[in-house]
């Protein structure tokens, strides 16, 4: 070992303080907009998870008090905080259950489609020989609008959450694959990929540690932005009556049902719409902030 030390002393090590680095979630909370969005999202998720415990009324049974306005409006009552709909069902309870279904549809669809799509895109960039075939396949998928796909699947399997999830997942795949591929192609051109090969890494290690690790945050931000879109398309499908069938509560469907009363009881349609808006906005802000903190170059 002593022979090695003589070489080391030839150049003095540069003494510096070890850097203090924020843990990523601390950095996330330091961004005020992101912190608020994250808290809102957590409240919404908690509300939908614990819906059976929180809901003051049964969301599916009607009552005689129809079209009661929310508590802050004239004639409102604490009995129904957000009022009741055209069939006298408690909107607050229906929102809790509806959000639950909307989130499940969105998360499952984005999860399935995002993971599959990103993986295909990354593989396409990693193994250039499959790239042309993969991308033509994605072009084919891309030419199906999600709404049309949803209509076709519902026509075959009947209305319900599952065909909607499948339709949304399939429509997410080509977008994610294209984005993941374009990010990955840029990373593959970098010299450190070659350096990884020179070290002797296997394809699997190179893919995971070098390619995936350098693409994941950009893909995450895209998927989280896509999550907002999927929620919107999902709500649109429900609005068209393709998704969950009554009396199940789903935000898009609730908005559709409120449409008939838009002139004399606007809250029935507006409240679920606002809820969709809040979910989409919070998801987008959180996704955006997540990208910033996951990238070590922006982090400090």
């Amino acid at each position, binding site marked *: *070992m002593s*022979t*090695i*030390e*003589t*070489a*080391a*002393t*030839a*150049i*003095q*090590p*540069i*003494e*510096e303080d*070890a*850097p203090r680095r924020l843990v990523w979630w601390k950095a996330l909370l330091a961004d005020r907009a992101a912190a608020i969005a994250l808290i809102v999202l957590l409240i919404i998720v908690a509300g939908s998870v614990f819906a059976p415990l929180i809901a003051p009324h049964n969301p599916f049974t009607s009552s005689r008090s129809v079209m009661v306005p929310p508590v802050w409006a004239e004639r409102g009552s604490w009995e129904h905080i957000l009022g009741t709909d055209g069939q006298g069902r408690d909107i607050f309870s229906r929102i809790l259950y509806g959000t639950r279904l909307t989130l499940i549809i969105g998360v499952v669809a984005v999860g399935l489609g995002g993971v599959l799509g990103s993986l295909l895109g990354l593989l396409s960039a990693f193994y250039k020989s499959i790239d042309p075939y993969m991308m033509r396949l994605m072009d084919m998928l891309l030419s199906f609008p999600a709404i049309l796909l949803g209509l076709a699947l519902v026509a075959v399997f009947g209305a319900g959450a599952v065909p909607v999830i499948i339709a949304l997942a399939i429509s997410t795949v080509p977008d994610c694959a294209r984005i993941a591929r374009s990010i990955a192609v840029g990373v593959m051109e*970098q*010299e*450190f990929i*070659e*350096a*990884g*090969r*020179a*070290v*002797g*890494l*296997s394809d699997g290690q190179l893919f995971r*540690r*070098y390619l995936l*690790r*350098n693409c994941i945050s950009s893909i995450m931000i895209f998927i989280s932005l896509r999550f907002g879109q999927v929620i919107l398309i999902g709500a649109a499908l429900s609005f068209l009556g393709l998704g969950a069938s009554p009396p199940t509560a789903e935000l898009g469907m609730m908005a559709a049902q409120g449409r008939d009363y838009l002139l004399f009881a606007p809250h029935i349609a507006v409240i679920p719409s606002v809820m969709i808006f809040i979910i989409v906005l919070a998801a987008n802000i959180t996704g955006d902030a997540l990208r910033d903190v996951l990238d*070590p*170059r922006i982090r*400090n």
Partner: protein
Amino acid sequence: MTDLATPVLDVRNLTKHFPIRRGVLRRVVGNVEAVTDVSFKVAPGETLAVVGESGCGKSTTGRALLRLIEPTSGQVMLDGADVTNLSRNALRQARRRMQIIFQDPYGSLNPRMTVREALSEPLLLHGVATPANLDAKVAEVLRLCGLSKFHAERYPHEFSGGQRQRVGIARALATRPRLIVCDEPVSALDVSVQAQIVNLLQDIQRELGIAYVFISHDLAVVRHIANRVAVMYLGRIVEEAAAKDLFASPRHPYTRSLIAAAPRPDPNVKRERIAVEGDAPSAMAPPSGCSFHPRCPIAVERCKVERPVLRQAGTSTVACHLAESQDAHMTGAVDKHHLNQTLIRRLEMLQAARQKSRDTA
């Protein structure tokens, strides 16, 4: 010192031609002849510099001999074992004995990995360290490259260019390879940092006896670090000689102009007109005969039709029909006459830095 009887690296007729594909059917319409028929040997602890202008195939040579690019043909022997037909798995294991240092210290480190992760990778992969003694091994490699233990927790973007290059060197050294291909390791660095890194490379070579293939276009650095120099032009070696002989009496006209063309800081200083005119011809359609003849100041009719083969001329190996006649022509015009002032000054600087680091050691 240079024991070429038992070389670490023996490259035989290495060739890399890239196919050019055109049209919808991706038909091969031609080849870029990046590297053609390159052979050389490197002895243990020796530095062979490969020089030439950009696009002459020197980096491709370095990558092809490590099989980072698959060579079209030819043979590469590392310690007597053939590298060219190793299976994928065997090749990955062989990477323990042959490493590379890249030109760009910014692009060659994975930005998502701390230095510790980057260094543990080769250490664990090749069984040099176990998870138990990993920390000690990482610290040892860092110290060898003039970095400290606390640097291990940092990401590449937290380092300066010179420090990053040290990390790159540390990664290449981690497995104690027999051979390191240095692909322009100092060209992306400040002149002051260059001297440090060059010295570091020399110290490490002296301690560990690693052979270097040193790819560079910087003749001052090459003169300082190399034992032997191979000059490449359009994918072929045109001259190979011991460094001091090559700089003292370059025999190929291309080598002479290369040495004369090294950049100078004062544009008003009268330039000795042996600089080559025009661009290098395309490697897609190399000229007939000697590929240098369109730019050669002394070309004769024979150069246009007959390709000169590498042959012994004095102490060098040269691929020029006129090497001998040039020899007579060039006597007297030797040594420092060729090296322009800048080159000499930079060489002196490198030597001074070397002396200084020896004194402090």
